[in-house]
């Protein structure tokens, strides 16, 4: 059944749910800064995300520096060492290292991947792909974005406080993160547990609010504003992915918000949600009343953060499905299974959280329960992988930059997903928990998956956004170099991790069980990481130069079916001159019904066949 909130009139549009002042010219501030147009907001999310990615990437480079030359006065960090550590001998203090990995993780997750996947792709794709003028709540959309710059500013500013940024890991487990020295008489449990940790909490409260407001918008828009004929089962998978992701955001984020609030209260108001009795910090007793449970934080945190990792992959799964289909000139293999498996990932995603806590001291019987759900969440991802293979099979594949990145998404996500099977086994997890094996897994799904998905989506929709192409040669060079450097960087982490190199440590050379070769492998990883970061300059240049001087792009350069390609590049302010009518699903490529190898969703079928009615669905 198609649900729609707009009339299918031509010409002057009624001011329905998405109506706003479309009749007079907005000033510069209202048009480009405090815009409520989803297209501008999507770019705001993208640019903010890309800037934070540079910061997060630089933090990673510093982490890798320390791991290649731990406490080495002959290899001081350029610039920073002279600026900050001259008095302490020039080497990086381990408390600073803790801040590096904490902030690298926090920034990449909350300020890069989530804003780009949900804020950029969601805002860009959803209204255009469903034939709507804008989001259901455009002002809310703008507010959702504008919560991000203050959050980012607070997060970055925390580095400049006297005690520095938060240093308890992006997971911020109490009591380390709760003992900030502000209450209870005991000193802070670490320099990174002082004011930087409170700023971290506050920053994430802003981000969480931004996410929740966004999710309400996406869900409403997708349910209410679809064009006539666009039933749910005719939605492109990108839209389905955003829809399901938004449900995850809506139900998961409030739990994180609560946990952050509780942590702030423990830190400043003397509550004891996470602080048990009898603590002492460096022999100084903590005088709070206690009675709290540190493991409670872990439950609350992971109840959000596990769905969060699916938030960080589902949108790019949808984008990949779309890109693979367009450039294979073939329908997505198994559309319904693809939708159901995304829903299964989301649903199961809410009942697996404690696999992050297998060794936490939690009841082992409870652990067994989570082993079952965690092992089975591999299944829908496997189904999706097979369906992607099926999409490629028998196709007519065009290796554009977008396509290369999308294929790489599948290839790398498979590795990340398979390494996750080790973690689903609680007994094997005894060995690999808190080692670099986990770090390898994380980065295979986040960089190998989401990042390549972002590259694919950007290359794909760039012509639509800017009316210009990104340079294909630069795109391919960037892809291949990134692919190689990325695998060199992160595959080796599986190896050191399986050998037992712990994560979150500033030096590992004194751990003799690591055997021969750990230092060399870390140096190799560092060099590959430096190379990887340098290569991203190619993408940045390609993006920036193409914005102004890229070859002009037509309305539908990729000869694609979905609605966004049936309007101009870039689209007008209200997206469509006329509200489109949808006659079929989004993946009718190489259809026998058409002489071309594509058949747009809005193209009316030939003749007076029953297929002329938008609700008609062929029985294949």
């Amino acid at each position, binding site marked *: 059944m198609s649900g729609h909130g707009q009339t299918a009139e031509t010409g002057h549009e009624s001011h329905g749910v998405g109506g706003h002042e479309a009749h007079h010219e907005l000033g510069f501030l209202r048009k480009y800064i405090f815009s409520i147009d989803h297209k501008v907001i999507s770019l705001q999310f993208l*640019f903010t995300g890309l800037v934070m990615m540079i910061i997060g990437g630089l933090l990673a480079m510093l982490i890798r520096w320390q791991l290649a030359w731990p406490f080495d006065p002959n290899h001081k960090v350029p610039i920073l060492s002279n600026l900050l550590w001259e008095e302490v001998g020039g080497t990086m203090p381990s408390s600073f290292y803790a801040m590096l990995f904490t902030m690298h993780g926090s920034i990449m997750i909350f300020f890069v991947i989530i804003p780009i996947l949900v804020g950029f792709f969601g805002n860009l794709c959803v209204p255009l792909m469903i034939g709507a003028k804008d989001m259901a709540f455009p002002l809310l959309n703008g507010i959702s974005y504008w919560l991000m710059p203050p959050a980012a500013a607070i997060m970055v500013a925390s580095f400049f406080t006297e005690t520095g940024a938060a240093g308890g890991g992006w997971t911020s487990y109490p009591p380390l993160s709760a003992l900030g020295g502000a209450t209870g008489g005991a000193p802070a449990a670490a320099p990174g547990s002082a004011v930087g940790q409170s700023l971290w909490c506050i920053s994430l409260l802003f981000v969480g609010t931004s996410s929740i407001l966004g999710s309400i918008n996406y869900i409403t828009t997708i349910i209410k504003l679809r064009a006539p004929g666009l039933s749910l089962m005719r939605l492109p998978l990108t839209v389905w992915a955003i829809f399901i992701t938004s449900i995850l955001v809506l139900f998961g984020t409030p739990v994180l918000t609560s946990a952050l609030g509780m942590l702030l209260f423990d830190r400043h108001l003397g509550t004891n949600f996470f602080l048990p009795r009898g603590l002492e910090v460096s022999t100084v007793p903590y005088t709070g009343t206690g009675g709290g449970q540190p493991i409670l934080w872990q439950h609350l945190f992971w109840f959000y953060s596990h769905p969060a990792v699916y938030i960080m992959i589902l949108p790019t799964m949808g984008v990949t499905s779309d890109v693979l289909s367009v450039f294979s000139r073939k329908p997505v293999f198994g559309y319904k299974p693809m939708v159901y498996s995304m829903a299964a990932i989301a649903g199961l995603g809410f009942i697996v959280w404690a696999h992050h806590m297998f060794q936490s001291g939690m009841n082992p019987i409870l652990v067994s329960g989570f082993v079952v759900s965690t092992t089975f969440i591999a299944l829908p991802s496997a189904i999706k992988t097979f369906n992607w293979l099926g999409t490629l099979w028998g196709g007519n594949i065009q290796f554009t930059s977008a396509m290369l990145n999308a294929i790489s998404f599948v290839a790398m996500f498979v590795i990340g997903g398979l390494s996750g099977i080790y973690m689903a086994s609680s007994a094997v997890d005894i060995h690999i928990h808190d080692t670099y094996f986990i770090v390898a897994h994380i980065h295979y799904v986040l960089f190998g998956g989401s990042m390549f998905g972002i590259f694919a989506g950007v290359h794909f929709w760039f012509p639509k956004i800017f009316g210009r192409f990104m340079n294909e040669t630069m795109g391919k060079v960037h892809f291949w170099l990134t692919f190689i450097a990325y695998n060199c960087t992160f595959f080796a982490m599986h190896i050191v991790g399986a050998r037992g190199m712990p994560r979150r440590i500033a030096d590992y050379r004194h751990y003799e069980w690591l055997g021969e070769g750990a230092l060399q492998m870390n140096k190799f990883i560092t060099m590959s990481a430096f190379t990887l970061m340098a290569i991203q300059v190619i993408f940045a240049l390609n993006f920036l130069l193409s914005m102004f001087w890229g070859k002009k792009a037509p309305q539908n350069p990729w000869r694609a079916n979905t609605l966004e390609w049936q309007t101009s590049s870039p689209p007008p302010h209200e997206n469509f001159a006329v509200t489109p009518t949808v006659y079929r699903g989004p993946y009718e490529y190489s259809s026998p019904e058409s002489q071309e190898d594509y058949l747009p969703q809005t193209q009316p079928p030939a003749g007076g066949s029953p297929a002329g009615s938008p609700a008609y669905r062929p029985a294949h």
Partner: protein
Amino acid sequence: MTLTKALGCTTNALAIFGLLCTAFFTACAPGCGPSSTPPADKSASVPSATADKTAPAPAATTPAPAVDPASAATITGKVAFSGTEPPKVVIRMEADPNCKAIHGTNQVFTEDVVVNANKTLRNVLVYVSAGVTGTFPIPAETWVLDQKGCQYHPHVWGVRVRQKGEILSSDATNHNVHPLPKNSKLPNMGMPNKGEKRPITITKAEFSPPVQFKCDVHPWMTAYCGAFDHPFFAVTDDQGNFKIGGLPPGKYTLTAWHEKYGEQKKEVEVAAKDSKAVDFDYKG
């Protein structure tokens, strides 16, 4: 993409972000967090006419203050120990093989109670606790705390408030220097490399009890540092002797502090160019 539109988008992402960053930096940097003075405070060392160094080695003398030497008095004395010497406790260093390797088969004992051969107590901090008036220039010399053989050298010493100090690690193992001051703020430092130095300055007086230094990694490593506003302090040596010189004539209270046996006080009055003997006796 027009230039105007690009500028707009970039402005969103960068300019306001930057402004907010600056605002927070300005607001947070001085105001946030517990107020403290930066640890590596390069205090202004007023050059003084000191002849002796504030050597942390167990020398019993004090720096000669900028007091009229013509009338300066001296207090010398001994801290006896007439109690039962507690059994020596061996330090278990095997948890860190690098520490153990330095000492080989030699046994190392804890330093909380060190009774000299002549039945006197070593490592007793003796200082003038009442009767001092005026200010005294801060010596220019840097005091040194060394970590050698996984022990602090010295074990007990006195320094001047705001006098420059240096912590040294002579061991090829990771040490952690964790001071526990009550009155001032001192950083918790990791020192992973041999030969590393860290500057340190104690900014407020603390001597009752003195500032405790400990190592989080090696639990037997403790040291005590008294920080004084005046130069009238000394630590008993391996003969149990101490000497506090350069005192202006007057009435003073002398306090002896031992880490296990606590404080003892004695009143003393010195005239110009006096040399008084004041002894303490700990009974254990």
